[in-house]
């Protein structure tokens, strides 16, 4: 499973197409029957306020380590063939993708459950922090919305 935390803007569908074509398909030809993906995108509103921009801080080293642990847990819990996890950091504008999670497996149950697990674990355990730019100034997002 490939994990990347980077300031470079994300192109989720292009990244998924490329990773499937270059990595998953050659390694597991004819073996994957299911791919479940999630793409998180920056909205222009949050908690009733217009949001003009966002700064995404992380903890270099720990963030990657925690994402690796989450991936290991997913591979231990479900029967998975491969995965891709991309997370943006730094300055973002509305409509820009923040996160991509993808999982490939033989059967759909594993892909669906592992994809959601990785996303929820990332939301609760990976050290990222969002600061939103509003008309009235900036604020740190205090907690994530509920995922279940």
């Amino acid at each position, binding site marked *: 499973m490939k994990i990347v935390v980077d300031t470079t803007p994300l192109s989720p569908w292009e990244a998924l197409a490329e990773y499937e074509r270059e990595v998953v398909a050659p390694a597991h030809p004819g073996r994957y029957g299911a791919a479940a993906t999630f793409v*998180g995108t920056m909205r222009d509103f949050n908690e009733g306020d217009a949001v003009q921009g966002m700064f*995404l*801080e*992380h*903890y270099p*080293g*720990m963030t990657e*380590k*925690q994402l690796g642990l989450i991936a290991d847990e997913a591979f231990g819990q479900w029967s998975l063939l491969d995965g891709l996890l991309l*997370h943006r950091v730094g300055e973002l504008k509305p409509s820009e993708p*923040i*996160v991509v999670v993808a999982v490939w497996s033989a059967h759909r149950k594993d892909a669906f459950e592992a994809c959601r697990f990785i*996303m929820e674990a*990332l*939301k*609760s*355990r*990976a*050290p*990222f*922090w*969002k*600061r939103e730019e509003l008309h009235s100034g900036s604020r*740190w*997002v*205090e*907690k*994530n919305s509920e995922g279940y």
Partner: protein
Amino acid sequence: MIGWCGSVRKPLIEGNSMTVKVKFFASLKEQMGCDGATVEIGEVATAADIWLQASGGKALPPNVLVAVNMEYTDQNHAVKSGDEVAFFPPVTGG
């Protein structure tokens, strides 16, 4: 830009000491006024002791998360010389 708090040294009781690297993130970095510090402390210390010394005696806010060497732990975790001790607010990525 928020910089490094520098070195925070506590008078030692028996001459033994250890040095740990402290990091703050996000809103906590702003509250502390720096993104980290080097803390020199007596031989036995918990993450909470490190916080107290680095923060100049402020109470550890209840929702602050604690990591030692990039793994989650709690404030009662015993740190050793060379450890990296991080304090940060609830995470909000994804």
